[in-house]
């Protein structure tokens, strides 16, 4: 049974057009790969609700979500930057995932503590984003995603700015959280070999379309699409 179903979604922006069908199972991790301008981030924006499709439907479970505002979708998203409000402490940033007015119940506080423990942020709660490292900032954003308790996690290249070792650690953390919280993850990456460590399958996008999907290992070792082969030749090995 598919958990996420993107059915005939079409989105136009001037001359450029995106046309996508995609499915994901509960707990699956799909990596969207492809060159810049392929439509990977736009697809995430359509799932999250920052853009409205001109045609097609998006279902999560039994529910159609493409008619809802972003805050009402069972989706949470991490961006490349601006994941945190710089004037708030890490704790407040995480707590916004529980209540937009920061009116927290005991249950919320417990949830925040658990999320901070899961993302190993315990001692940093009173610091502000400017006072912590890039990795700690992204862990904070992940902790907030956990507090939002939404089953679909979208990651729009959130670890691009980090050094390679930290990226590996962050991917491992995402994988751990995916398994412990039964999250379905869709991650956009320019580094297919790196993201292969956590992705069950890959979807290769080019010119607003998904040209090939399949299990990660098979797609990386035996790509069917010539454009994917070409693309993989110019991406660094993980």
């Amino acid at each position, binding site marked *: 049974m598919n958990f996420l179903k993107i059915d005939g979604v079409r989105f136009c922006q001037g001359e450029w057009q995106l046309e996508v069908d995609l499915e994901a199972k509960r707990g699956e991790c799909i990596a969207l790969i492809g060159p810049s301008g392929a439509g990977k981030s736009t697809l995430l924006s359509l799932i999250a609700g920052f853009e409205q499709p001109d045609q097609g439907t998006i279902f999560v479970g039994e529910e159609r979500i493409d008619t*809802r505002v*972003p805050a009402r979708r069972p989706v*949470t998203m991490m961006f490349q930057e601006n994941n945190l*409000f710089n004037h708030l402490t890490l704790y407040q940033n995480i707590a916004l995932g529980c209540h937009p007015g920061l009116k927290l119940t005991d249950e919320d506080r417990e949830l925040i503590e658990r999320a901070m423990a899961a993302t190993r942020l315990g001692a940093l709660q009173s610091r502000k984003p400017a006072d912590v490292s890039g990795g700690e900032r992204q862990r904070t954003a992940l902790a907030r995603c956990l507090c939002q308790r939404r089953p679909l996690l979208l990651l729009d290249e959130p670890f691009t700015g980090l050094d390679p070792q930290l990226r590996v650690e962050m991917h491992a953390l995402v994988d751990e959280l995916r398994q412990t919280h039964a999250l379905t993850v869709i991650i956009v990456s320019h580094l297919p070999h790196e993201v292969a460590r956590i992705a069950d399958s890959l979807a290769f996008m080019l010119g607003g379309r998904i040209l090939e999907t399949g299990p990660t290992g098979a797609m990386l070792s035996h790509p069917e699409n010539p454009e994917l082969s070409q693309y993989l030749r110019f991406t660094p090995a993980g």
Partner: protein
Amino acid sequence: MNLSLSARWQLGLWPGAIPLFLLTTVIAGSLTALGALSNTASIIATLRDPYFFQVVRFTLWQATLSTLISIILAVPVARAYARRPAFAGRNILITLMGLPVVMPVIVAVFGIVAVYGRSGLLNSLLQPTGISMSFELYGLTGILLAHTFFNLPLAVRLLLPAWDQITSENWRTASTLGMSSPQLFRFIEWPALSAFLPGVIVIVFLLCFTSFTVVLTLGGGPAATTIEVAIYQALRFEFDPAQAAVLALAQLLLCAGTALLLIRWMRVLTQTSGRKSDSRARPDTGDRAGKLFDFGVIGLCGLFVFTPVAALVVSGLQGPVAAVLLDTDLWQAAARSLGIALMATSLAGIIALGIASTARFLILERRQKSAKEGLLLAGSLTLAFPPMVIGTGFFLISLHLEAVDTITLLMIAVVNALMVLPYILRSIAPVLIDSGQQYQKLCAQLGLSGWHRFCQVDWPMIRKPAAFSLALGGALSFGDMGVAALFDTTGHITLPVMLYQRMSAYRFDEAAVTALALVLMCVALFWILDRGLSR
């Protein structure tokens, strides 16, 4: 699209639509009142009157001269500050250059008279040498002097950010090319400066063109009268509403025409403070003559700006302090001024916030850049509608309703709100839009909207510029005399009007203390609002 999405799209328009409707109603109502009284006969009579053309000519002439003098003097002063980026007290001096902007005009006029007047500080210093100042302060000279006092420091502050646009690489390249100081000015500084100059010229020209208090107090008669003063005289002395209406419409046409003609240059002004220019790499700072020139220019400008302020403080402290301060009329006038200032600032703040929110919505959610620009421009339209023109319309309406006394304070507050609105809007809108660009998606995802978003995200981001502009608006409104003088029937409706009455009655001792009290209250109000809101 379901109801929640479409409702969100509609809701985003309301915060800007309501204030825009109110603005249009106020301006249209005022113009209708003016139009109703400007019948063909009164227009023909006014246009046939040589006095009308004399007033229009003088208005343009004094504004042009004032602008030229202020800008010509401001360029070397701004360049001197830009070339000396690190001397002790530089930042304080630049901050204090903002004093004339906050200072009530009537108080500054008092300070100028205390220095340059017949029995002023300058003449008393010159007395032992047997020389006396030959110029007559009342008339064009006084007007130019006062306008330069206000606009020279303003122009310096507005021009200084031009040097922030020059990169240290530009200076290093100039060094390797062995450029002299004049060559640096010609090839590097002038191109940056020339992008700013038109905008600054427009602002200074419009300020001088609509100047009221300076011309009323220092004009010295029909030969040196501007349109705004002529409106005041037509209403207060000749009680000729028809002539006032025609004059107001003429002022509106000239002002709006100038603003529309020059509006494209008003957009190039940036918001930087002019304090981060890295000119340490420039090659012409070591020269001794250059240093002498720069510090000489900075010193002279400082002397010109701060002497009237010092004279005001000294003469205030020498006056009958206790008697003036124990007078209940003074405190009643101060309370009315405070009420007007707080009402005007709150109203302008709410309107500015509504317009800025909708502008942000238009650009970020609907991607309608021209609609956003149009809305922000509409919010700044009151720059082209002089407060005196709107005030005159209001005055005529209240005369018609026979309610001059009952709604006076409200009307003054509304006109003052329109006067300070463009400044507050220009401070809040860019920051609010930037905050939106940074956090729009995050807020949408977290469900941060409305009051929650305002408290958690928007207010912390706009708090400082909003506090500063609201404080500035409050101080400007507190010290403004223009429209209050028009509505005044008692002689002490507000503190600035009371000061004007005391100066007109040659009660200079009392006026000195009143002026000092007024400026101190203004500074206190500015400080309390700025500190209180930015905390």
